[in-house]
């Protein structure tokens, strides 16, 4: 018996059984072969039903073993700690939103549908593209779906991916592309600029290439200034350009769609969504074509329409014939559940910021990154990975010793930075990332730099 199960009291349970002419609930399972029936209790939880305060106590004991950075975290690697406004938290905590299902019954879900339509509109504007869907799971799976879409649309299997793309995103693309037989080809890094090497790209482009995938600001925090050239080269072989960008960069940096990108991807973490130990977040996926590519577009889409009597505006899910519940094995994706609530959070955060606030927030992050770069370059024992590059939010650094060791020492002093890049590539074992956001004060950054000087000076 439990109060989450209203009919579990013996009285009501008995009433329901009597109504069905049954003595015991086991009769409802008479069609299950007896040898399959579990003859014991499940060994889960803590042996019995717990009172709410017992669960709270237990949970607090467990998570007290988690530790947080004492100053705002300097950890990067795709996700960074940002401020989530209280208004965002309050609005996504409205249980009309969070206990709702996918809005299959449009008339009773207009508010949710309108909010998701606004998300699509805001994101399309921000990325400079025509259509953005109502969300993918996160940036990594949005990237995988983008690549699969490109391969379908172009009927080609080869995908060129810049070495400056997040390594976990590349891994996810590889996993998702296995069934479709995709061939991923790495395009090397220009060691000076920290950007995709145009000459390597040119040598690998051919009419067998379906898409070229680049990221800016890239995994090392470098703002790639050659994106336009990459897109032009890509179009020369009639392939699709896919550009991964963080939405918070787009207050100050050019929209990928405006640079000619065919497909845009990103992740909303930082825009109304916390770190969440890596998930959930929401993946952004958009296209600059509402004809050919739209037919191959995966995921849920909301559209504006009118009521049947023509009197009122309303919103509904559209182009569902692309989706699995209708198209089955010929669907453009298997995605069903997405990340609506995080998309909503992003829409609320963007609405609070406005175009002006987004610009200012972008500048606040850019300014901090610039300050961090200058401060780090004054440290003798620490080298910037790409000293000449323009950075946004994240900066790659090289230590004279093992990076993991340095970062562990830093963490023991209450300051979290990283990740060390050795975890992705052995030859980068002496490198790490540092991320700054609006949360950091000058004092915080100075503290980090001082500590680094001390730790590295001592040889880790």
């Amino acid at each position, binding site marked *: 018996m439990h109060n989450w199960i209203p009919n579990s009291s013996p009285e009501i349970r008995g009433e329901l059984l009597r109504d069905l002419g049954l003595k015991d609930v086991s009769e409802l399972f008479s069609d299950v072969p007896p040898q399959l029936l579990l003859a014991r209790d499940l060994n889960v939880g803590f042996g019995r039903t717990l009172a709410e305060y017992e669960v709270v106590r237990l949970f607090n004991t467990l998570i007290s073993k988690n530790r947080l950075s004492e100053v705002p975290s300097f950890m990067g690697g795709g996700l960074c700690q940002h401020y989530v406004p209280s208004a965002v938290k309050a609005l996504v905590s409205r249980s009309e939103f969070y206990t709702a299902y996918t809005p299959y019954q449009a008339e009773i879900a207009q508010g949710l549908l309108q909010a998701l339509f606004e998300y699509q509109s805001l994101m399309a504007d921000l990325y400079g593209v025509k259509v953005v869907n109502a969300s993918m799971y996160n940036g990594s799976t949005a990237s995988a779906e983008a690549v699969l879409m490109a391969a379908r649309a172009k009927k080609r299997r080869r995908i060129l991916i810049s070495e400056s793309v997040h390594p976990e995103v590349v*891994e996810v693309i590889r996993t998702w592309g296995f069934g479709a037989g995709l061939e991923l080809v790495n395009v090397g890094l220009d060691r000076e600029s920290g950007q995709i090497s145009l000459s390597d790209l040119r040598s690998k482009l051919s009419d067998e290439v379906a898409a070229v995938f680049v990221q800016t600001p890239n995994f090392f925090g470098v703002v790639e200034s050659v994106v336009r050239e990459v897109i032009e080269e890509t179009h020369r072989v009639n392939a699709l350009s896919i550009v991964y960008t963080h939405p918070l960069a787009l207050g100050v940096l050019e929209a990928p769609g405006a640079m000619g990108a065919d497909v845009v991807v990103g992740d909303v973490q930082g825009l109304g969504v916390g770190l969440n130990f890596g998930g959930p977040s929401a993946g952004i996926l958009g296209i600059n074509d509402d004809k050919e590519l739209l037919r191959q577009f995966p995921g849920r889409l909301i559209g504006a329409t009118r009521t*049947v009597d023509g009197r009122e505006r309303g919103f509904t899910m559209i182009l569902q014939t692309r989706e699995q519940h209708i198209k089955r094995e010929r669907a453009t994706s298997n995605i069903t559940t997405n990340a609506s609530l995080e998309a909503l959070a992003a829409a609320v955060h963007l609405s609070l910021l406005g175009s002006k606030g987004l610009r200012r927030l972008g500048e606040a992050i850019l300014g901090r990154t610039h300050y961090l770069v200058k401060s780090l370059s004054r440290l003798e024992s620490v080298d910037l990975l790409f000293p000449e590059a323009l950075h946004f939010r994240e900066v790659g650094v090289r230590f004279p010793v093992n990076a993991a060791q340095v970062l562990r020492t830093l963490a023991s002093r209450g300051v979290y930075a990283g990740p060390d890049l050795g975890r992705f590539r052995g030859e980068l074992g002496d490198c790490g990332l540092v991320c700054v956001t609006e949360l950091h004060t000058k004092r915080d950054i100075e503290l980090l730099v001082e500590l680094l000087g001390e730790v590295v000076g001592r040889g880790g």
Partner: protein
Amino acid sequence: MMVFRQAKWDEPVLFELGGSSKQTFAVDDEFSGEAEEALSKAPRHVLRSVEPGIPNLSEVEVVRHFTRLSQMSYGVDLGPVPLGSCTMKYNPKVSEELASDRRIVDLHPYQDVDSVQGVLEIMYLMQKWLSEITGMDECSLQPPAGAAGEFVGALIIKKYHLDKGNTGKVEMIVPEAAHGSNPASSAMAGFKVVKIPTAPDGETDIEALKAVLSDSTAGLMLTNPNTLGIFESKIVEISDLLHGRDALMYYDGANLNGILGLVRPGDMGFDIIHLNLHKTFSAPHGGGGPGAGAVCVKSGLKEYLPVPIVDFDGRKYVFRYDLSRTVGRISWFYGNVVPIVKSFIYIATLGPSLREVAELSVLNTNYLMRKLAGLRGVSLAYGEGRWRKHEFVVSFEKLLKETGVSAEDVAKALLDRGFHAPTIYFPLIVKEAHMIEVTESESKENIDALANAYKEVVDLAYSSPELVKSSPTNTSVGRLDVLTANHPKTLAPTYRYVEKLKDEGP
């Protein structure tokens, strides 16, 4: 009879709120000099050329806007959402509060494992508990939703056969009554989908299965209880048939709620299973997501799981990346941790009482089924005389023929009576279908009220069908024009399209 009137705000779209010059969310200017310096050094062409069209509104305007939108939405906290195969159960408030703790939401995925021992212990326990619940040996929590878990399953099947050198295993068998994501996931993994029908008793047609089974068969994707809510009683025989051909058995866990603690897929002979934590284990659905989708396997397939999985090395919890045959990462990091934490709280609270979840969800289902099966114009699809498990399917084919009122019309009329409609027109093998799942969360009174609402609608269909066909009228808007919404000339997936249509017309 419950009276239902949904809020109806004439709420403009964000872009129509008239916000061009309000005071927006404040940002500090401690680094404005630094920003200026960086901007002056940056190549011009990397900087934004056109300001995005986001309106500039004050906080109070934004809060009112989205609060009004929330009032025009409908979730489990407002009333029953009896969507079949979606398991829309109550989402306990304690889970919401605990999972929003800073020591969860501010954790960075690349923190040293020493600093995240609490959350790793939760994930480790969840892997163990989900293995026990499903009768499998090892789980990965990485799939961000059920369909992603299915895709992992299909990839495991693909890789398993390739590793054995069986390049001819190219076919995945999927029942016609299966969830659409099954064939879609199979296709994404590169399989040819082979369909099999349902027999009149509501179970998989085993003769049809034997007919398509061959050395090309890589696996079978099945949900049990199936989408009709009927338990596949010949499941052991089916498993033996597949295993006899060296094909793997995949279990779609969407329907697990009806057998929790009573029957386990692992004991039925399944090799791989995905779970939807946002269905069975009560993480909220979020208006479409996020979900969380574990994937569990028998010990022989453990090395194929996505990495990392959480392990205990005798001293502390660690991530293990060294699975030798792994299909790779299905998503970055470690899964959707917040819903995983909510499901942890749910299972920790109920413990062995999870069995009652299944018992009451099944009892509720059959109680409601009996009430609806007797209604005029309504018939039970397949499996006459069979008890259902977590859900059941009724057909309004007769009602449509006799009154012109369709399953969709009935669904819209239910909205007017304060109920979310069930899943409609699914499974595809049932004409004019309603697939209904009330879960263990609904009280007897609520189930009675839902049954009465159905009766009222069906009666109305026979007396004044036009009244049913003109519903809904108590929702924020009336019936929507889906054709216009989908027509290439009037398609409007963003506000820019709305403006363009206003200016130029379709």
